[in-house]
């Protein structure tokens, strides 16, 4: 089926080459980082994780969110999602690949990557994270490929994939729960030390992922003959609405615990992020942008008229995605380190090389996404009008 990615319009190829060029530039900067060391980034002794790990954390959520289309379809036989399950599954693949690349970019000794598997350490959450991520990637490639292959031949997917589909449904939340445990099990980092970290992660994942799928569906419909269906997009809109409400609520709960208890350690990071401490407040504009986008998206989503209108739904989805990208891809990780264990403040801001490498990884993600979607859409275009009963 891969050959389907090799034929395309002029626009398709311009897009592909643009992404390749960005990837190339990112790679050149990565080589620079390899030779100089991670000192090329804005990270320091006090803020020892930054943009890379933030992106990883955010993208794990996007990867996990595929389950939001796969689950209703396979477990509840929700036929409307029939056309887009493949889009969900194929979104998971580049997301996990990007997660792995960000981890790789963040390692001081990337050549020793295999040490995680050579010296398996069951007491380290990171070991389990590597395991569940790898497993999830394989599951989605296998399932996506098998389902699409069957669709192309107009036959129901083979029976052997069914167990893998159910497994992937159970597996998806686990990748995000385990990632949340990376943070929520650390002593002395009060901002992360919260039992609702895992559910917060799930809520934000199930809001940001489906909102991206909505946008992708609209793009696919605009540029190809494949129509994911209005009803499917509307159903996704409802999912985003409820999960985003939960997400905002959970953040509110964290605020309550911190500020009603008035325990200094629990208040400090929130103060730093939203008001600034001792004149430090580099993240304030970002965090407020995130908050405003969240409110804006909720207004559009909760109001049925604007949710039903695809234009405003697209705006709401973009707002959700941006808001959560800031909150999880940046504020959550960086904030955890500020103030440091000595209650001193060291600020963090990504450097230019760090940003270019990050954009490069995103370009690889979009490249894989484009190729996979091209294949899926081409197969779909061929079988347009034929409904297969799976």
């Amino acid at each position, binding site marked *: 089926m891969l050959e389907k990615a090799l034929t395309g319009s002029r626009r398709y190829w311009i897009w592909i080459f643009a992404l390749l060029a960005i990837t190339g530039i990112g790679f050149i900067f990565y080589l620079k980082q390899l030779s100089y060391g*991670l000192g090329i980034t804005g990270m*320091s002794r006090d803020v020892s994780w930054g943009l890379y790990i933030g992106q990883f954390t955010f993208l794990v959520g996007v990867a996990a969110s595929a389950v939001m289309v796969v689950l209703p379809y396979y477990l509840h036989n929700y036929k409307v999602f029939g056309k887009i399950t493949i889009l969900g599954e194929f979104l998971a693949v580049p997301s996990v690949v990007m997660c792995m690349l960000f981890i790789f970019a963040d390692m001081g000794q990337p050549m020793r990557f295999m040490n995680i598997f*050579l010296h398996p*350490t*069951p007491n380290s959450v*990171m070991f389990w994270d590597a395991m569940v991520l790898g497993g999830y990637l394989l599951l989605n490639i296998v399932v996506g490929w098998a389902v699409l292959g069957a669709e192309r031949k107009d036959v129901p997917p083979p029976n052997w994939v069914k167990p893998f589909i159910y497994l992937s449904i159970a597996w998806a939340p686990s990748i995000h729960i385990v990632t949340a445990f990376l943070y929520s099990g650390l*002593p002395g980092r009060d901002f992360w030390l919260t039992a609702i970290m895992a559910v917060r992660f799930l809520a934000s994942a199930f809001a940001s992922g489906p909102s991206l799928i909505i946008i992708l569906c609209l793009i696919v419909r605009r540029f190809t003959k494949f129509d994911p269906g209005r009803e499917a997009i509307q159903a996704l809109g409802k999912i985003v609405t409820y999960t985003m409400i939960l997400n905002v609520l959970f953040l509110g709960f964290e605020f309550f615990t911190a500020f009603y208890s008035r325990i200094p*350690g629990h208040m400090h990071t929130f103060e730093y992020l939203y008001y600034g401490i001792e004149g430090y407040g580099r993240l304030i504009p970002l965090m407020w942008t995130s908050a405003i986008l969240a409110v804006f998206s909720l207004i559009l989503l909760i109001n049925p008229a604007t949710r039903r209108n695809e234009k405003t739904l697209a705006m709401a989805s973009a707002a959700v995605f941006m808001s959560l990208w800031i909150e999880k891809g940046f504020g959550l990780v960086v904030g955890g380190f500020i103030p440091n264990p000595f209650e001193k403040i060291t600020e963090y801001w990504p450097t230019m090389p760090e940003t270019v490498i990050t954009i490069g990884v995103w370009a690889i993600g979009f490249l894989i996404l484009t190729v996979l979607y091209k294949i899926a859409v081409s197969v779909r275009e061929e079988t347009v009008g034929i409904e297969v009963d799976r």
Partner: protein
Amino acid sequence: MSISRREFLKIAGASAIFGLGGMAIINEITDDIEASQFSPGPDALIAKRWAMVVDMRKFKTEEDYRKIIEACHSIHNVPDFGNPKDEIKWIWTDTFEHAFPGQEHEYMEEKLKRMPFVLLCNHCDNPPCVRVCPTKATFKRKDGIVMMDQHRCIGCRFCMAACPFGARSFNWRDPRGKDDKGRPFIKEENKEYPTRTKGVVEKCTLCFERLAKGLKPACVEASNGALIFGDLKEPNSEVRKVLSTNYTIRRKAELGTMPSVFYIIG
């Protein structure tokens, strides 16, 4: 250090059976494996549980602090990059409110508030840095020393996020290199102690290499009795005597990491 396949299966099996509750057992198993590789020489200093007491009453001048920091950093080839962003330190000083956050109050004696406290890795009994390390590059020996295996560290910096004491440093750049003016980051290399590469984490290892030769840690030696070092499990040891006759505090005891560095304030 390297664990055999069988041992891994044992660990994996144990973790599957006991789930998170089995963690303690796993720690036991890995402790044994890791401890076995060190065979101390005939004169080695041996203890069941090493500990240190910092007697702040004995620090009088800047020089007293400088001496012990210098002793450690010079023999261990700790680089000086000359900027806080890349900084690496094994032993250093900070004020009371930073060393013991949450314990200070507005009406405290000014002198105590401003007094520089000697800080280093606490060699915690229950070290979170060891718990989170995905490669066992940081591990705890039976005698309580929390060790670093720089050849195994992948530089993920999970341990830095986990250590609540800011005791770990990362080599953001090559410590063997030179600055713009051609000055090496390691001023005078001690050939007897390895240098590190970029991309790994490092910290105080309680001078395990000196203990193996029968010597006390370099900072203890340079401290003129202000740092007291010994076996916590030995009722007659000097540390135990000091601990039983003085009021001592530990950093962030409420976190349950059980630091093995104690402070006599005065």
